[in-house]
């Protein structure tokens, strides 16, 4: 029969252009250190570098030292942790859904956490951080679970569109419930504020400690999933043919996303677009190979959030913008760029 000239399989040019992983990571770590330092120095009041160092090493209770060690240090650390977690979660989401626009918030984590937390505070009067964090993560987990299960039911199975639609439906419902609660109890808005927009204000070591187990679990799970997810990128059928348990892999990845993103939301509220923008930037630097990609996402995410927080703190000083707004403003151009380059698959 006719032997039509077959189109050669396109070698991902990104892989050829990719910078070596370790190099990028070292660069990233350096950037992180610089940005973290800036985060400790800058703010409503500027603290000089030597003072920052002495605050960390020889704390003496002076106002500057207090600002650095008790206010800014936790913010920077939590910001880094949240940024890293969201970056990795975003990369995982984009891998599961094979959609460059996928975001952890699609799994309903933001509103799930918000509903659980606001509900807990309004209805049950729960107020302590130690209790709120697990509650928020629980809410995020339940929302994520419901969405994944619903999207996976039926003959079609878990396709990206179904996941996104299920996510939109459930998020809409949860958002409505939160809004209903806010209307029923008008004082609760003060409480609900921090769940409506991401903010690093009031970041504390207690909260971090409470969220740590989930974040660690999510990270470990992600590491275990690198191999199966890389194969999954070839398509469900091909992956299955190669022996990957596709359903299990996708489910486990969703769990990892919920743990990482849920933990982040519990710590800092919904900070969107980090999970969307960071994987794209990382991919442009190191290519599609999942292992270096995830690590680069973590570093870039941390840098992005800390940087956004610095700007949020200085831009309208002495007022503070929520960090979520800043990341949205940074992420939007990335979104545009992604779309213009036509990276979107049908």
């Amino acid at each position: 029969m006719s032997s039509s000239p077959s189109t050669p399989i396109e070698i991902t040019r990104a892989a050829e252009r990719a910078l070596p992983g370790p190099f990028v990571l070292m660069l990233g770590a350096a950037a992180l250190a610089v940005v973290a330092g800036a985060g400790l120095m800058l703010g409503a009041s500027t603290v000089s570098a030597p003072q920052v160092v002495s605050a960390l090493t020889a704390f003496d209770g002076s106002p500057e030292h207090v600002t650095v060690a008790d206010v800014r240090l936790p913010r920077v650390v939590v910001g880094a942790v949240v940024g890293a977690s969201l970056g990795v979660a975003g990369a995982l989401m984009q891998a599961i859904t094979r959609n460059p626009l996928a975001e952890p918030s699609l799994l309903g984590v933001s509103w799930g956490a918000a509903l659980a937390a606001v509900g807990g505070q309004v209805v049950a009067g729960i107020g302590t951080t130690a209790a709120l964090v697990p509650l928020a993560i629980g809410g995020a987990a339940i929302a994520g679970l419901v969405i994944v299960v619903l999207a996976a039911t039926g003959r079609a199975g878990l396709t990206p569109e179904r996941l996104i639609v299920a996510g939109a439906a459930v998020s809409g419902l949860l958002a409505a419930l939160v809004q209903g609660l806010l209307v029923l109890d008008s004082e609760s808005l003060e409480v609900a504020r921090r769940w409506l927009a991401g903010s690093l204000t009031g970041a504390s070591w207690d909260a971090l400690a409470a969220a740590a187990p989930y974040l660690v679990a999510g990270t470990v799970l992600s590491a275990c999933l690198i191999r199966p997810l890389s194969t999954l990128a070839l398509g469900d059928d091909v992956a299955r043919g190669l022996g990957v348990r596709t359903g299990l892999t996708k489910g486990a990845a969703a769990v990892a996303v919920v743990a990482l993103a849920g933990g982040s939301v519990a710590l800092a509220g919904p900070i969107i677009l980090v999970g969307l923008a960071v994987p794209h930037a990382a991919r442009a630097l190191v290519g599609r190979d999942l292992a270096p990609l995830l690590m680069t996402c973590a570093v870039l995410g941390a840098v992005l959030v800390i940087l956004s927080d610095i700007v949020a703190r200085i831009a309208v000083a002495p007022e503070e913008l929520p960090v979520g707004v800043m990341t949205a403003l940074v992420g939007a151009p990335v979104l545009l760029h992604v779309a213009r380059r036509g990276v979107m698959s049908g």
Partner: protein
Amino acid sequence: MTLDAHDLVLGYGGAPVIEGLNLQITHGQITVLVGANASGKSTLLRALGRLLRPQAGDVLLDGKAIASLSTREVARRLAILPQGPVAPEALTVRQLVAQGRYAHQRLLRRWSADDEASLASALEATGTSDLASRPVDELSGGQRQRAWIAMALAQQTDLLLLDEPTTYLDLAHQVAILELIAQLNARDGRTIVMVLHDLNQAARYADHIVALRQGAIVAAGPPPQIITEAMVRTVFDVDVRIIEDPVTAGPLCVPATTLRTPALQPHRP
């Protein structure tokens, strides 16, 4: 009713797929475009049907540049059925075929007797009158294709362009569709231009074959004249033997070599 292409350059944004192509579609005949995958045959058809704007050159409909005519005007003279069209859920055959009257309706004009007559004759010509109230997506492949052809017919045009009308159909339906197309040409004198994948089908049903390779016309003419072993080798990259079609006495191609000849079959215990 004339349709010509002059010095056509066609592409999808990158390098041109077709360059400097000239073609004249013979009025009242069935012209079939053939070629290997990515030879440009669908691209050419789409340009002829004004679905693709040429990067250079012109497509002339009745001597006028097709790009200068309004979409409605073109639709009144030329109907095009793209490859693999999808009907929305729960759309009935009648509703689908009625769409064919779009170009003949004005903003506030009601459904006229003319429209009704065209609808009825389109249904009858394609043998879909008794399927009229059934949803399109519940029909078999062959029935569905006939419904789409009926829609194109309802446009009441002299010229009908079809992009691979028989792909995805089983053999019986392929034959039925091709026979229908032949009938539309024989009975109503419609000019048909279609892209066919199967060279033997083209040999049977075409008055005029245009063979494309890598965006250029390699051969054009009546099937007995241009279907030669050399042409097939050039266009399709395969060696064939041409024999006489026992039904039409036209050319029939069969691949020349195969592992499966009795002499060459490995000995089986």
